[in-house]
């Protein structure tokens, strides 16, 4: 145990930090893009307060289009775009762009379904009280959807952790890469086991945290 720790401790620690980095940064941008898109989807859909068939259909198609591409393909497919945007297509920096492109539409969908759960009558009550639409979106719809939003984001983070496993292919490291390059290619079975165990614990903790938070927000 001591020997394993001194030999692999640093590598595993570094890989964990890389995974955390990728997940945090990519998630931040994915929410920054996905949440407004989710709001836009809810508002422009049929019978929404800003009903607009063209915007809704356009957005809907775009999201479906991106979500059809598996991450491993998307990663290479948009290489030129990644390079154009951040100047490099390798390392953590290079993988953030495809991760965001991959996750933002997913977040948008999750937010859409979370926001649709909010009772239309409540929105109407606030309209009747003379509250402006932007305030209703933030203080009523998003506020009231918080439990569902938290659960959706938990789901997105877990999916994102899965996607970062592919990041090793462009040299961004992370736990997935560790399991593949050391555990698989170099037959270090103990590293494989440790990584898998770490990922299991990580996902379990995240899901429990998400569930707990959602229940606390739900107030029922």
């Amino acid at each position, binding site marked *: 145990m001591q020997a394993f720790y001194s030999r692999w401790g640093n590598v595993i620690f570094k890989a964990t930090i890389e995974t955390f980095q990728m997940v945090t940064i990519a998630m931040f941008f994915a929410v920054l893009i996905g949440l407004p898109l989710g709001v836009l989807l809810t508002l422009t859909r049929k019978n929404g307060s800003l009903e607009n068939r063209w915007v809704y259909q356009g957005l809907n198609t775009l999201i479906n289009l991106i979500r059809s591409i598996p991450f491993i393909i998307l990663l290479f497919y948009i290489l030129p775009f990644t390079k154009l945007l951040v100047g490099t297509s390798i390392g953590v920096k290079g993988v953030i762009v495809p991760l965001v492109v991959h996750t933002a539409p997913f977040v948008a969908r999750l937010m859409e379904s979370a926001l649709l759960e909010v*009772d239309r*009558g*409540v929105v*109407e*009550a*606030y*309209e*009747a*009280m*003379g*509250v*402006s639409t932007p*305030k209703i979106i933030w*203080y*009523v719809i998003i*506020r*009231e959807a*918080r*439990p569902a939003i938290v659960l959706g984001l938990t789901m997105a983070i877990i999916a994102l952790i899965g996607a970062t496993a592919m990041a090793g292919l462009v040299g961004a490291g992370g736990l997935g890469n560790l399991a593949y390059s050391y555990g698989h290619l170099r037959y270090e079975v103990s590293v494989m086991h440790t990584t898998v165990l770490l990922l299991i614990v990580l996902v379990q903790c995240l899901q429990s945290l998400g569930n707990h938070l959602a229940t606390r*927000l*739900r*107030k*029922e």
Partner: protein
Amino acid sequence: MLIQLHQVSKTFQSNIQQVEALREVSLKVNPGEIYGIIGHSGAGKSTLIRIVNLLEKPTSGHIDINGVDLTRLSPKELREIRRSVGMIFQGFNLLKTATVEENIALPLRLTGLSHQEISQRVEKYLAVVGLTDKKQAYPAQLSGGQKQRVAIARALSHEPKILLSDEATSALDPETTESILDLLLSINREFGITILLITHEMNVIQRICDRVAVMEHGSIVEEGSLLEVFSDPRHPTTKKFINSQFPQSALSLLSVDEQDGQPVLELSFVGAVTDQPILAEVSKQFQVSPNILSGNIVPLKNAHYGKLIVQLLGDREETAKAVAYIKSTGVKVEELKGGEAHASLL
């Protein structure tokens, strides 16, 4: 005039058909009164009340509140006006994730009131609806009646001149309905708030309304003061709503008693007359025995309205005298079935 609708029409367009929800409805609600609109589901009353604060845009016609035509306002001006028009709903429409206090405070904050003012109003209006001790409760912990009280406090906290009630008691049990109606009455009296309500329940109308309109197929088919409409309904729908407050068995009894050859009369009376023992007098003064087939007295907002179906047993002369006497006391007499021997008494 406070609320006035001019020739308001609303047509809903769907892929397959268009539905005329409102057909040139004109309506006038005076300051300080409680105005009730009754109709069956699908009559258009829900659309009508939502058009008053422009939650629904009319296809044609216009809506005046205190002389301001809402259909001509900018979105910002409309929001201003809406703050003086409170609204409560059948489904309460409270935030599930907020406490009672937050449910009242949040809209006030969003319309730009100061913290101090907000906490004062929360206290004041929670006291008005009698829920001061539930300040920190969440809606899920409250009963239906309590939720509606929170919604009423939320509406009142904006200190509106008008309160719109969209089937506010329809989801509540009879006892809770009574207490909410009492609350609405006291709000109307205490704060002078004009109330426009829609309902499909006749007892809501008779308990608290000053004036009433009956709706059917997107039009108002009858309108008047509560007493007028109750004592002299013209439209079949109105009659149906009023008859729903009286026992049904009376008419079936008529056929049974037909062969007796004695007249069957419907006596309807309003207000103070209900306090006098008229039929007892009749049997004392004339040689007739009144046989009561059915009877009911319905409490109205400021009076009582009663209806008796009576068969007068006696000879023709005495019966005619008795009828004349009854009429002289202010009771309205209508002959439902004349006896063979009595071509007409009236």
